[in-house]
């Protein structure tokens, strides 16, 4: 029995002992077919899924290779049944192929007539198919490429897509590496995406996803549509593209509530895309406005449902999804896979941290004991108001203010969910607040002040959860959040992960009211980060108040 670093579980998870001497080598080998599920301090968990295995087939690995790797690194004997299962699953890929036919357009082809028969019987699949040309070929209705792929995947017969991508309208884009250099992992991510055709790149917040986007554009050398969460993020993208590529101001357009510019590179917000006039999505035409060669979805974990639907129609265009946290509380990860594409690149947060590209972070949970009066009130509050009640308590405000004052010399962000609470904090600390109704101009002004250090502390609502680049922020104080959202917690930590000029670490405080529902939510919120190896430290609020 070998003494390898890998333990293969019968539920198809792979446990990687990262303290093992072969762990690095093993990680590289299994990354091509297993999905990283979590990466805490000692044992990382990967999972073998049909999607992952098909993905591996798509990138040219065969079952024998996968099995050899498992056997080579496995510490214990690998159950034979599991190996058989892997071989069987992988053999399902590619029995069906989507191809472009000069006369009939898109066709579904298989050498295995039985498989073709099976899938055409599927209730969902049948309406998408047209005439059967012969035993092995069926015409696919135009525009059904995405939906068909999705439906076939659900039936367990993923189609290999040979229909290719349209190149889109040519537009010269190159990276301009003056005074900076693209990092190795960014390059790998962009290449991984390009070879895969379409897909999602997962990188921690602050690790430079925009540059991966820019590098992808440099590969495509074509007109690009970039979809982002909000206007501020749109402008950040524009600035970053101007800095990192040879694009000039006239090449880049903003398509938002404020402006409606369509240029070779157009940055649009999700919000404007999903705006409806008289029940009709007014701006979806943007997808057809130019013959786009590449569509980038920023923060793909937030992609709204209407965009999903539209994305199914544009399967012939290359699509790149970017995110730090591919967890969706609505469980729509599968849709992301089939419509945008499979995960092309993923790397544990701690690994990027070890390379020094994101700041080390210290996560602290501050336990606050409510006063007796507050507790009694909490106890008698209506169920639906309880979270709001305990997370906005007076005691919490006092602790937040004390903490902010302790870090008077650092750049501090106070983040919360409830506007009243934020207003009170802003008043108590004597600093401005950014929330939903703050005008874009004002937001940009305040962010700019904060970046330069003129403003040391800023109170922000969830509008700052994503995509806001505040490099020098080192302290985040979270007073309340969207209940148990794991990705929100991670994104908020992400605001302070940009490496600091002086190499300082970041600190993330999460204020939690003891013995209340706040504590339960906090436990769930922390799970994603804990699985990425961020160990929370717990301190008592009294320690802070004493100082």
């Amino acid at each position: 029995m070998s003494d390898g670093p890998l333990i293969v579980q019968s539920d198809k998870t792979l446990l990687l002992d990262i303290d093992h001497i072969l762990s690095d080598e093993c990680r590289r080998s299994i990354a091509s077919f297993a999905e990283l599920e979590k990466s805490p301090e000692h044992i990382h968990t990967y999972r073998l899924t049909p999607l992952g295995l098909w993905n591996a087939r798509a990138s040219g690995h065969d079952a024998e290779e996968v099995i050899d790797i498992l056997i080579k690194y496995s510490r214990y004997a690998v159950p034979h049944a599991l190996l058989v299962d892997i071989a069987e699953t992988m053999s399902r890929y590619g029995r069906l192929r989507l191809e472009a036919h000069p006369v009939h357009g898109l066709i579904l082809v298989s050498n295995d007539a039985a498989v073709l028969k099976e899938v055409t019987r599927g209730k969902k699949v049948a309406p998408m198919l047209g005439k059967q040309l012969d035993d092995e070929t069926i015409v696919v209705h135009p525009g059904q490429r995405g939906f068909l792929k999705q439906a076939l995947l659900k039936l367990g017969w993923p189609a290999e897509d040979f229909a290719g991508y349209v190149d889109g309208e040519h537009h010269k884009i190159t990276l301009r590496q003056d005074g900076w250099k693209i990092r190795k992992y960014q390059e790998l991510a962009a290449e991984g995406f390009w070879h895969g055709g379409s897909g999602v790149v997962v990188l921690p917040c602050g690790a430079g996803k925009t540059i991966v986007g820019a590098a992808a554009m440099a590969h495509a050398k074509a007109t690009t549509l970039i979809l982002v969460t909000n206007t501020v993020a749109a402008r950040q993208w524009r600035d970053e593209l101007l800095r990192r590529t040879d694009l000039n101001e006239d090449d880049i357009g903003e398509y938002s509530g404020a402006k409606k510019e369509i240029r070779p590179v157009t940055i649009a917000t999700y919000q404007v895309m999903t705006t409806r006039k008289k029940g009709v999505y007014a701006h979806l035409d943007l997808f057809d406005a130019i013959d786009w060669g590449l569509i980038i979805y920023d923060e793909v974990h937030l992609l709204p449902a209407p965009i999903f639907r539209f994305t199914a129609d544009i399967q012939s265009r290359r699509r790149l999804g970017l995110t730090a946290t591919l967890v969706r509380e609505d469980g729509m990860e599968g849709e992301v896979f089939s419509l945008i594409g499979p995960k092309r690149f993923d790397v544990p947060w701690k690994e990027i941290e070890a390379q020094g590209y994101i700041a080390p972070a210290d996560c602290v949970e501050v336990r606050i004991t409510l006063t007796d009066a507050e507790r009694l009130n909490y106890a008698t509050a209506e169920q639906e108001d309880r979270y709001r009640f305990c997370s906005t308590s007076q005691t919490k405000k006092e602790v937040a203010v004390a903490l902010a004052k302790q870090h008077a010399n650092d750049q501090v962000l106070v983040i919360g969910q409830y506007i009243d609470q934020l207003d009170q904090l802003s008043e108590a600390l004597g600093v401005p607040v950014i929330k939903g109704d703050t005008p874009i101009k004002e937001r940009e002004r305040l962010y700019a002040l904060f970046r330069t250090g003129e403003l040391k502390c800023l109170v922000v609502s969830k509008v700052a959860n994503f995509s806001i680049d505040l490099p020098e922020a080192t302290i985040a104080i979270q007073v309340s959040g969207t209940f148990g959202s794991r990705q929100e917690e991670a994104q908020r930590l992400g605001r302070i992960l940009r490496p600091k000029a002086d190499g300082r670490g970041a600190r993330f405080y999460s204020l939690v009211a003891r013995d209340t529902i706040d504590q339960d939510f906090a436990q769930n919120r922390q799970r994603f980060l804990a699985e990425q190896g961020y160990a929370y430290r717990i301190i008592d609020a009294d320690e802070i108040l004493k100082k």
Partner: protein
Amino acid sequence: MSTVAITFADELRARGDDALASIFKLRPDLVSPVPNDFSALAARATSTPSLVRALDSINMWHYQIIEAACALPEPFKKSEIVAVTSEETAFALDRLWQMGLLYKEGNNYRTPTNLKMLIGDEPAGLGPIAVKKFDFSILKEIPKASEEVLAKLTWGPPRGQIGNIKKPGNAIGWLLDNGVLVALDSNTVALPRDVAIKLRGGKIHKDMVSKAPNLIGKEVVQKQIDLAAIANISTILRWCEELLHNLSDEPPTALRTGGLGVRDLKKIAEHLGIDETCAGFVAELCYLGGLLVIDSDDQILPTSAFDIWLTKSAEERWYSLVVLWLDTSRVSGLIGKNSDKNVAPLGPELDRAGASLIRRSTLKVLNDNPQLTPDVKSLQEIVKWINPQRANNDYVEWTLREAEWLGITGQGALSTFGSNLLNEKEVLEIESALPKPVDHILIQADNSAVAPGPLTPELASEMGTIADIESRGGATVYRFSDSSIRRGLDHGKTGDQIKTFLSKISKTPMPQPLEYLITDIAKRHGRLRVGSAHTYIRCEDEGLVQQILHDKKCEHLRLRKIAPQVLVTDFELAEVIGELREFGYLPAAENSGGVLLSQPNLRRSKSRPKPPRIISEFTAPKDAIVTAAVKTIRAGERSKKVEPIIPGTSSNETLALINQYINEGKSLIISYADNNGGVSNRIIEPISISLGTLTARDETSDEILQFRIPRINGVAPSLTKSENKADLDL
């Protein structure tokens, strides 16, 4: 003059002790119970059930020889049967004689009558025996068209349908005219036996398959086989354990017809992470081992035998189940098979005769071909050769599948452990091959812990009470949560005990959040105490009391506050506790003395284990039994006094004898009990037997009468004409 059947008994009587011993060894069913004397032994050995068993156990080559023997006119010489089969047959005759499938009359051989019946009227596809002597020279003159007809009939079936026997057409007409074909009825013709043998070139079979085909397969290295097998063994043991724990947690209700319902099976399969076929097999295996039982109130529960089983070593646990699987007549492969009707595991519909025979034969082939992953088709061919009468391709396939699940094989080839099992070795070597248990865990910041190998049983059980298992396999992944810690506390542990235990066995420092989690839960645990007088809730924390009192969800409990720290209700204790827990509180029950009630929730059936009956093949008897049987039978023989004129016979014997007479067309005397209970002797000419009734012509009345076989007390040959009939009416 004695009849043929009595000759068989006589012939047996004349066999030496060694030969008798071998008939018992080769046909184990004859020894249980030990027959009283030789006529009983002869009768038993020629009874249909015993002959069927004997035929089941012989291989295709022996079966061909028996077919040939049944096709020949009796008695036949050794040289005659060799002539129609092959030279090698000479070597097989002795064994078939030992089995009592042939017996000797001087230097000639005969077959027991019933055997002919079992083989059928057309042995090896040969037609009826011609009445007239046939002139073979005519075969040289057959016209071309007729030759084609003959070619169709030569290798059987020997019968052909024609429109009308009166207008047979030229080809058939010629054959009929020349006696090459005979008419059976107005539209059937048949090829007589000796003509067919002649046309077959003097042989009865195209090929005598005196050897089993070779096994084709892929060669595998024993080390790889054993690695795979040991993984399978630890997996199957884990599956059994998991399944039984799962039954204890949520006992399913058996179907009305007995057995596990489809939905429950699906649930179990999901829980184990395997497909339903495999889950059904695991359930059956536990059932065989008496580890689970269908209770009197139809709940399917683990038995107390399960608790004992758990304490044994892996090798003992495995052996105790596998050894039963080898012999069981229950065929798990049938589960869910039937297209129009579901076949349930643990149900009554899984028994199949011959299943264990095929299972053993399949495994024997694997045993004879080490380090080879067999090609299934090739293996099926060989099993078909070994047990031509019972061979079932499905059974072979299922045996392979199940043997793999059990770890008897690894990668399809016989493992060292499987071979040790089949060759009845004392030590199966499983224990030493299993990975060494580990005595530590790694706790991580996300409140999970990994045991990087099989934990020692004590640690595993401790961990099981304070953490939930998230993933199993070579390692175990545990997750700590509110409810898992609470369970630990419910089991009577304190928060400090849990922390000490974890820091002792963890190789990594305990993360602070986990420490807090345990402290928090321990602090809150039991702060709420619920008693029954009819049920009170007391709590030192008035705020909490207030909270519960105002909790809208608790309204229906009709709680009343009787003191600042005490609430009471008229509901049952269990209900109140359940509801409170559901609403997110952490109450603990206490008894009248204020002492915490804590007990693990392990459910066991009160019934004793009732493993299913095994209908297995008879296994070869031990030498001692064989010797004793021979002795008994000899003694029984000596004690026999003067034979009555009409010896008493058992039904089987009666049947065998009468069949004999029918075939020979001789008359006989029977002792028959009439409707009034009077017994009289009658001389009859038997005609036919069907449905337990003998149709015969009564010589005295010259009528065709029906005789019920069970009422015939004895049978004897009728006397020759010269003897006086009146002398018989004694």
